[in-house]
């Protein structure tokens, strides 16, 4: 549950509400508030009551479940009520159903109601289905004659002919739900109330229920109220909707608009300002032209790595680097090695070569494969499988090392034999993945080795020697002074290595900071390094699932793209991403979403694309 939930109403500027609607109003909710007195509700005995009275806290704790809610449902409307758990949806429905009385306000109902508030209320599990049908029908207000007439219909819908005279306790929960639904909908009501019922039972039953509800709507012009947190269902069935959050109306309007907004904002964390920003962008009237965004998706990080490698269009026969997909840090060092060797970077599981990787190896037909890591992270069976996957037997090289620190040094010394490293290096700690991803286009471009600390304040002996000798002219330090000490950096400087600490205020801020540094066309560009990396093409990667971006540095470097880290669940991050795109003043032309719809829904993609379109204007 998000701690800071925004409850201010969101209003669409262009919301043409047809006031000339002449259909009769079936449900009119006017300024309804519901206040529960928390203190007196827990008092179930005289003693507790007396104690509370003595403490004078009897009337103090109030819980406002609904706060001044107003809406109207017209005849024939299918009205959806959306909201996260505990937001007051069910309380609202209970007030409409007449079970609860609102503390203040009015709820006027025009017509008879068939409530489906939690199916099966009043079933007695000891009784048979036949007896329960009569009992439940009676409780729902049907006459004996009516139940007799429709008995067969109910039994047929519920598909329980064979079990009619069996006690209900022997029924499966799906069967119970079927009977309950059948009884509740056998009548053609004027107003039907559906509360999460469609979430019980199996898939077939859900479809059947939905068909029955659709039939009631179409054939009998029934007015329906549906509560669900299944937003797709509401969008499919409803024409109007309200979004209630913590008892406040957030948005009311067409089901399509409300559901769209709920999908992007509902239940997500973020400040009110960020939320407004995202909301405005979502409803910005901009046509997004084709080709502004594309998606690189795969089944897993291994599939994505293979896709990225294929996108880079390496010539057949080039060497391949295979890194352990479960360890982020070695992959980041491997990005640099990939650039040095001009080799695609693939990932593997420790004990099994993923199919996507195998296919890509077969296609690339490398003459040489470099494995990053010892037996524990890449087993010899994987090495064998990889060798077998190649059309021609490749030369196998394995760089041994148990820690990120050791491996990063091994890669450096291995690379030194075959090519020239750049004169900029990185030193960081195991786990600083997000910042390294932001830097990875630069690392690839500049062939920068990436060194890892053994632990905070402890540097690998040989790495320390190399750095203190002044092998590099520039050193980027990711991490504060408790990780890499100032004295050490001072020694490096005396040896001729300029250093620069990169410390961002949170992952998104750090991302922006790094992008400003490595790209050459930002307005505030003070970087002395002329860089071919631009923000024209941005690779959008999910900040909370960095694994998909482990090998994307190679792709980014090849396409001169920069990274934009975003977490669609966190509105602050989305808002930050929007501001970033806007700040580039139209320099951003293209977005590549890494990970596909599992990480970025089509709406998440739409919002960023709209920002790109707007900034271009």
């Amino acid at each position: 549950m998000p701690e800071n939930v925004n409850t201010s109403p969101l209003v669409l500027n262009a919301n043409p509400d047809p006031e000339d609607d002449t259909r009769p109003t079936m449900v009119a909710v006017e300024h309804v508030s519901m206040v529960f007195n928390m203190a007196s509700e827990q008092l179930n005995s005289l003693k507790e009551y007396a104690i509370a009275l003595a403490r004078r806290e009897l009337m103090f704790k109030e819980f406002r479940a609904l706060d001044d809610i107003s809406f109207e449902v017209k005849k024939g409307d299918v009205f959806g009520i959306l909201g996260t758990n505990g937001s007051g949806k069910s309380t609202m429905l209970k007030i409409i159903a007449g079970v609860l009385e609102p503390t203040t306000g009015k709820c006027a109902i025009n017509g008879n109601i068939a409530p489906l508030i939690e199916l099966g209320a009043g079933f007695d599990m000891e009784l048979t289905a036949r007896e329960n049908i009569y009992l439940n029908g009676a409780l729902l207000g049907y006459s004996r004659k009516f139940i007799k007439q429709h008995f067969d219909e109910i039994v047929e819908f519920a598909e329980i002919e064979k079990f009619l005279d069996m006690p209900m306790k022997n029924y499966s929960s799906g069967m119970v739900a079927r009977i309950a639904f059948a009884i509740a909908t056998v009548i053609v009501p004027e107003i039907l109330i559906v509360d999460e019922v469609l979430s019980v039972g199996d898939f077939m039953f859900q479809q059947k229920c939905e068909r029955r509800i659709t039939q009631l709507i179409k054939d009998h012009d029934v007015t329906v109220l549906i509560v669900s947190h299944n937003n797709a269902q509401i969008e499919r069935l409803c024409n109007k909707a309200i979004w209630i959050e913590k008892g406040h109306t957030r948005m009311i309007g067409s089901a399509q608009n409300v559901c769209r907004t709920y999908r992007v904002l509902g239940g997500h964390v973020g400040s009110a300002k960020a939320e407004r920003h995202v909301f405005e962008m979502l409803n910005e009237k901009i046509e997004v032209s084709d080709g502004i965004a594309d998606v690189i998706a795969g089944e897993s990080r291994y599939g994505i790595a293979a896709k990225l490698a294929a996108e880079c269009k390496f010539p057949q026969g080039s060497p391949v680097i295979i890194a352990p997909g479960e360890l982020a840090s070695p992959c980041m060092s491997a990005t640099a090695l990939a650039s040095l060797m001009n080799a695609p970077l693939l990932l593997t599981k420790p004990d099994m070569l993923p199919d996507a990787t195998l296919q890509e190896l077969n296609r690339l037909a490398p003459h040489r494969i470099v494995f990053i890591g010892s037996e524990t992270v890449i087993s010899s069976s994987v090495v064998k499988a990889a060798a077998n996957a190649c059309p021609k037997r490749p030369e196998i090289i394995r760089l041994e090392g148990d820690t990120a620190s050791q491996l990063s040094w091994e890669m450096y010394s291995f690379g030194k034999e075959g090519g020239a490293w750049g004169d900029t290096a990185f030193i960081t700690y195991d786990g600083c993945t997000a910042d390294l991803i932001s830097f990875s286009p630069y690392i690839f471009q500049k062939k920068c080795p990436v060194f890892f600390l053994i632990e905070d304040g402890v540097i690998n002996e040989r790495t320390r020697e190399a750095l203190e000798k002044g092998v590099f002219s520039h050193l980027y330090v990711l991490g504060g002074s408790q990780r890499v000490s100032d004295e050490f950096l001072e020694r490096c400087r005396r040896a001729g290595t300029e250093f620069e600490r990169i410390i961002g205020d949170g992952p998104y801020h750090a991302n922006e900071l790094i992008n400003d540094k490595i790209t050459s066309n930002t307005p505030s560009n003070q970087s002395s390094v002329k860089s071919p990396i631009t923000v024209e093409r941005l690779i959008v990667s999910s900040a909370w699932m960095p694994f998909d971006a482990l090998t994307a540095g190679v792709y980014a470097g090849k396409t001169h793209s920069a990274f934009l880290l975003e977490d669609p669940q966190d509105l602050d991050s989305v808002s930050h991403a929007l501001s970033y795109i806007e700040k580039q003043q139209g320099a951003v032309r293209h977005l590549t979403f890494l990970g596909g719809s599992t990480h970025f829904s089509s709406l998440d993609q739409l919002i960023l694309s709209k920002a790109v379109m707007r900034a271009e204007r």
Partner: protein
Amino acid sequence: MTQASAISEFKRNWFTISSLVSKDFKLKYRRSILGVLWSVLNPLLMMCVLAVVFSNVLKFGGDVENFPMYLILGNILFALMADSTSGAMGSILESAPLIKKIRVSKMIFPLEKVLFQLVNFAISLIAVVIVMLVFRIPPTVNLLALPILLIFMMLFCAGLGMLLSALAVFFRDVCHLWGVVITAWTYATPLFYPINMLPDWMQSAETFNPMYHYVTYFRDIAMYNMLPGLKEQFICLGMALATFAIGFAVFKATEKKFILYV
């Protein structure tokens, strides 16, 4: 509310109540071999036990003619009151899932429990018939007043039941307390001892005990071949009406808040 809709409302509620009564009835006897026979056997066996205890051990049943008949009449009528009020007391709490989910007149739940006990009472009357046959007590025309007594009893029990069911929602203590009250009431009412055994002040106190009046009424018409006088009839009716009015008023005043407490 128009008359027609009032009638349909009543019909609807009556069907609901009768469905609930038949549910309770089915559940009570499901899976017992003797089934409904227990409603006859139970009072008979109870009568036997009490008759043995009070005439042979405690030795004060001897003064009463047809002591077993005296016992069984008092017992089944008191049981009607005790069982129906106890059942009604928990009825709202038990039907909490229903009350929370569907709009249904809440009063049907205590009333249904009272009616259910009336059905049981009717069955246990068979036991009374058996006793009358065994002890050769001839039925008299006064027995025709039994429906009047039952109307008094229904009003009294329904009133008490509604009051208790409403109180139990807010104070669960009532549930624990009521068992004790019933036991005390059992001894305070001359069920298995003759009224003249009591000291004078207690005899006059009995006039404030509604159950004393109803039990005496029952014995008068079934055993002693007499019809209670008009004054006695009015006392019985008055006590029933007053109890019903109080119960009804308390229930109506509080029923809207039930859902917040069940």
